[in-house]
């Protein structure tokens, strides 16, 4: 039976926690690259954040980018960014972006651009810099509050350590997406914020479902397995579900990507869909290969679970889900004695008193 069929039936036993080192290293590399990209290149902010004027016009006269730029320079507006883009119907447009302009300058620029390109103005936007920075601060504030509220909710519903592990996976996802944007140089617009929030929401959602399963297994079989084994068990059980969910999320986004970039060739739609696509894929990856192993390692250090590990290993029942690579701590004879005593402590006493 193929791996896929096994997974479909729920028959697989992949050791996620045991192999965690390679996942951690992989994630580490990704984060390092992203940080590098962010530090060196920074973001390409759109006018909604920096302020400015953006005009997208149909390039009926088929002028080149340099011709347009020269025309704009000639009316005294230097430093304009001019590029050729494809709009939503696949038609070739020219997009001009400048810094903040006065109303009169806006009118002048619009007339000039329309004349040079010879086509219809599709999209015209003017944003003041103060408004742009307000949008940024509002977005950041919303993000912080969201993370805070979600952490509290997950802590209440599941466990606080799970909340933190989920947050770690989140940061990883967002950092990675930001790194991609910085590396490739996509423009950061409010739609980017939407993409990032979608990825956040999706990653959290996925992680919560996985952890929910872990919690369930802990409550049902927590007496017989180490935490790492429980996590492995849960992961294998939800693997199919996780893959299915990413697929059903990626399908509509993939459609958007396909429609956007191949069918129509629309630039902004393609960038948005690509960001979403990569982000959702990374979100799935981080829930399974990052958040869960992290949680396992963390929880294993708790006293209760260390005792459990020793007990399981002593009984020799490593089980099919045991995680290789997690070793129980060295014990002194005194500790062994103490744990044995603790294990048999209760029952006899009451009877003795009765005598």
């Amino acid at each position, binding site marked *: 039976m193929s791996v896929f069929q096994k997974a*479909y*039936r*729920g028959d697989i036993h992949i050791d996620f926690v045991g192999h965690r080192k390679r996942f951690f290293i992989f994630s580490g590399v990704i984060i390092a690259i992203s940080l590098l990209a962010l530090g060196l290149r920074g973001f390409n902010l759109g006018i*909604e954040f920096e302020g400015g004027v953006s005009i*997208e016009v149909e390039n009926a006269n088929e002028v080149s980018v340099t011709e347009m730029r020269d025309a704009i320079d000639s009316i005294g507006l230097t430093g304009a960014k001019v590029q050729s883009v494809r*709009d*939503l*119907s696949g038609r070739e447009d020219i997009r001009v972006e400048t810094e903040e302009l006065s*109303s009169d300058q806006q*009118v002048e620029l619009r007339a000039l651009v329309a004349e040079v390109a010879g086509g*219809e*103005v*599709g999209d*015209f936007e*003017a*944003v*003041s810099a*103060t*408004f742009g920075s307000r949008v940024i601060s*509002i*977005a950041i504030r*919303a993000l912080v509050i*969201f993370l805070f*509220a979600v952490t509290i*909710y*997950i802590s209440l519903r599941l466990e606080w350590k799970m909340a933190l592990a989920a947050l770690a996976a989140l940061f990883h996802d967002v950092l990675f997406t930001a790194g991609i944007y910085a590396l490739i140089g996509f423009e950061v617009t*409010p*739609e980017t914020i*939407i993409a990032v*929030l*979608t990825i*956040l*929401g*999706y990653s*959290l*959602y996925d992680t*919560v*479902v996985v952890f*929910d*399963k872990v919690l369930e297994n802990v409550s049902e079989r927590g007496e017989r397995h180490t935490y790492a084994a429980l996590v492995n068990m849960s992961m294998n059980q*939800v693997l*199919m*579900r996780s893959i*299915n*969910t990413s697929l*059903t*999320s*990626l*399908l*509509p*986004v*993939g*459609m*958007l990507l*396909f*429609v*956007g970039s191949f*069918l129509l060739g629309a630039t902004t739609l393609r960038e948005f869909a690509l960001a*979403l696509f990569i982000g*959702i894929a990374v979100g799935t990856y981080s829930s399974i290969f990052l958040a869960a192993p992290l949680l396992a390692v963390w929880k294993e250090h708790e006293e209760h679970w260390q005792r459990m590990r020793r007990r399981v290993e002593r009984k020799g029942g490593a089980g099919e889900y045991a995680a290789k690579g997690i070793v129980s701590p060295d014990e002194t004879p005194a500790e062994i004695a103490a744990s044995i005593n603790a294990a048999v402590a209760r029952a006899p006493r009451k009877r003795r008193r009765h005598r």
Partner: protein
Amino acid sequence: MGRRVALITVLVTLGLIWGSLAAVLGTGTTPKLGLDLQGGFSVVLEAPEGTDAGVLEKAVEIMTRRIEALGGVQEPVLKVVDDRNIQVELPGVTDRERARAAVGTTGQLEFRPVITYSTIGVSPLLFDAQQANALQESLEASLQEVEPTDDTTTTSSPTTTSSTTTTTIPEDVPLDLAGVLPAGISLCEDDVAANDQLGCVDPVTGLSVGDDPLKEAWLLNPETGYIYHVAPACLRADWLAGTCADSRLDPTVPEGEQRALLGADLAGSEKQYQSQGGGGPIGVGGGGVGQWVVILDFNDEGAAKFEAVTKELAAFAYGDPQRQFAIVLDGQVISAPSMSPEITAADGISGGTAIITLGSSDDPEQEAEDLSVVLRYGALPVSFVESTSQEVSATLGSDSLSAGLIAGIGGLILVALAMLLYYRFLGLVNIIGLTLFGSFVYVAFGVLGATSGVTLTLAGVAGIIVSVGITSDSYIVYFERIKEEVHRGRSLQSAIDHAFARAFRTILTADTVSLFAAVLLYFLAIGSVKGFALALGIATFADVLIAYFYTRPAVALVARTRFGEGGRLSIRGATGAAKEVVL
């Protein structure tokens, strides 16, 4: 779940949702499309810091009436967003400059007697200052000549005049205007807020900044380039006596004391075509065929004031600038007509009507119309600054809509196919559920659009597309759980029931996180992110409802049919387990 209960629940749910869809489609309450899906113009106007909420509401009212009077805009949306911004959305508007002017113009109108004016674009104030300087110099020069008589030994030649005066005045230094400003008016200072120094004078240009109708001012006519020195907007007698006060401008003045002649004294204004050149008692005749003018109708009190003002003005001779009065709109002179010679100081102009003749323009009729609309509904209570504006052409709008629809529907179809592949007949349950989901969202947006003016934007469409993934996940969680329970050895019936109990908990937990995100975003963000949040919230809510009221009973029903226990296509077949094992 009992068979009857399941059947009833499913039928009721299907009926409700599909029924409301039919109702919405039938009554035409389709979702309102946002600007980026149908084209139009939108602008966000920012009020000064600390503006009262009531003031913002009043401004919205005035702007709405102006837009409606202009016509040609279907369903404009004007609303206050957060504490100092007004968002104006005008779908279908093609002439953005007109629309912009209509909502952005403050419309503060004043009638001020002219004192003097300059035609060469230099403020009369600068002339005064220069004259004062020259006077000063010659005064000092003559003083110099008088001085040396005390000192006979050192005879510095007394005839050398201004070139050797101790007070050197280099020629290119900005003229000091402070010396020639009338009492009560100061030079503008950079670090004082504009609102605290209304009517101050710019030290370089000699023009007034921030128009205060109760003070003298130096104002520009942007079309002719003339700069006028005007008196306060009261009777000359009041001005000279110092009693020019108005309770509408200064709250410390007792109510009823309204001596200024302002736009608030108008009862109405219309555009009018006047043949044979400027008619009426005032206004310089344009000559020729005719022209568009704006008629101003004063109310009773305004008419009386107007008559009194014109009587005063008529006392000056024809040709004297002081016979003119300036019509000032938002701190700029739009017209400064002189009264025709027939009007005497005894009559003034009665009848309470004034005429504004416009300067040259490409479309005088439109200009007259726009101006009359702005004046008709009164001035905006505060002046706004444009913080962002966006114009989307109709073609771009409809392209965006089609792209969104194709992606959305295409995505839905793909997801449905995938679910069929994985879960066989259960996938069919899912497909019906997806149609329910789509209907719910459509109805929600339609109703919200009709009641609260909520529009569906491209961001909203993106939100819905993303939620398709989330709602499919609910099914997946449930179905996988059923699989698990069956593998544990439960009978199909009990597997379904147990699975749902557990799965719903998971779905609820995870969907709450999504709802959190949506609600937070909605209240904290502005613009397109808000639309996304709304779509996400509605979709997530739909998901929870449908999972409980449809999926559960539907699966229970299916299990009882041969599709439950049957061959490969059935539920049991999908779980991949052998036929029921008796424990």
